[in-house]
């Protein structure tokens, strides 16, 4: 398991070297988007309109932060569960998105899309919202302000701590539940 420091925008070379289990400290710009924002992004694509940010080389963080208290750029900002974005992810990967950041399992189509388009899925520690907010130094809403916690934010991150869960070669880090050991098989 290797450790990498990467900067956005991410390139195919950046992604292809990563293997499930590697630790990555990401610096640069990432975009927040979760359920409602994904629906709106796909609606824009269907209408042939421009997206609020460039997908090529981008990383999307599945997060709906809590409000920023005075003096801080953002509130608690840990990952939300990723499977809810699986119906959108393959299309976004096909258009140049290089990384998604969240927690929990991805479906087969999303894992396949990572192989087809040299992309990756990073895990961040769920529930570590206060800790992860320390790596976010700036945050501005750039689209869908009306969605409140689900608006799209452009966030500057410094050494954001991530773990490669699904790599672009079909590798996956999550443990397979041992039903036999648990006595239910």
């Amino acid at each position, binding site marked *: 398991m290797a450790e990498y420091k990467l900067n956005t925008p991410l390139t195919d070379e950046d992604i292809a070297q990563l293997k499930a289990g590697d630790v990555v400290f990401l610096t640069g710009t990432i975009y927040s988007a979760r359920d409602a924002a994904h629906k709106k992004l796909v609606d824009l694509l269907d209408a042939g309109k421009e997206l609020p940010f460039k997908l090529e080389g981008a990383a999307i963080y599945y997060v709906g932060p809590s409000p920023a208290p005075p003096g801080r750029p953002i509130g608690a900002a840990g990952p939300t569960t990723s499977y809810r974005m699986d119906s959108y992810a393959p299309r976004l990967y096909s258009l140049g998105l290089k990384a998604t950041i969240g927690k*929990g399992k991805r479906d087969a189509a999303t894992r396949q899309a990572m192989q087809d388009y040299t992309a990756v899925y990073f895990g961040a520690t769920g529930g*570590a919202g*206060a800790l992860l907010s320390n790596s976010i130094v700036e945050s501005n809403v750039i689209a869908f302000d009306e969605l409140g916690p689900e608006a799209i934010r452009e966030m500057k991150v410094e050494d954001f701590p991530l773990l490669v869960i699904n790599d672009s070669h079909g590798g996956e880090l999550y443990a397979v539940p041992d039903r036999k050991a648990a006595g239910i098989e």
Partner: protein
Amino acid sequence: MRTIQTSEIIDAVAKMCVSANTELPADVRSKLEKAMAEETSPSAKEVLRQLLENADLAHNTKLPLCQDTGLAVFFVEVGDDVRIEGGNLREAINEGTRRGYKDGFLRKSACDPLSRANTGDGTPAIIHFDFVPGDKLKISFMAKGGGAENMSRVTMLAPAQGWEGIKKFVVNRVAEAGPNPCPPTVIGVGIGGTFEHAAKIAKRGLLRKLDDTHPDPDIAAKEKELVDAINALGIGPMGLGGKTTVLGVKITMEPCHLASLPLAVNVQCHSQRHEEVEL
């Protein structure tokens, strides 16, 4: 008859919403510390280390432990000899929630199920009332995050399936949930009652302390059996493998219809955020 003012209830509820979302309960902290000492996998240890550091940071900065500050769920015990003055009890709890979520910079996560339009203030809260002897008002609050709640299930087993069927369903549910609900989780199991009652008692069980023992030795043994089986799955902290998949299992059992065996599994994340106040 004792009189309690709604203003007192509003203040207490607002404070509780904030503190439950920013302070990791002591029993949860000690379980996470114990788990960290027992884990041998470096990734499991690292996740648990991050969660403890996160709790310290939340305590020091007053940031919420998790950005998902939950839907506000309350279990309220109203003493028979209590009279509420100054307004309606349900509205007072909702007003306290509104105030706590606003003043504490907590995320407002309540929305319309179909349009997904946010209600904007974290309400309506989910409130369960119970009436008990005495002149006290006890309000228990639980911040119920969506990630863990989504992994919960209710099922109606056939009576013949018995304990083996219950065990299989609970353990399988945790296996299927895998890394999604932020393990190590706490599992509330409701057995009996009716379809909706099983779910309610499963959730109410999550108000118990992690290190308590069920007063019925037979149920206590069943809780241990489930803890051991679930931890044998090897899902581990955040699904990265390890010995700690569950911090506790809390069973609540009540009589049911002779044709039924209702079963509910309510999944709660590792922070197990809850608090209670007695007025």
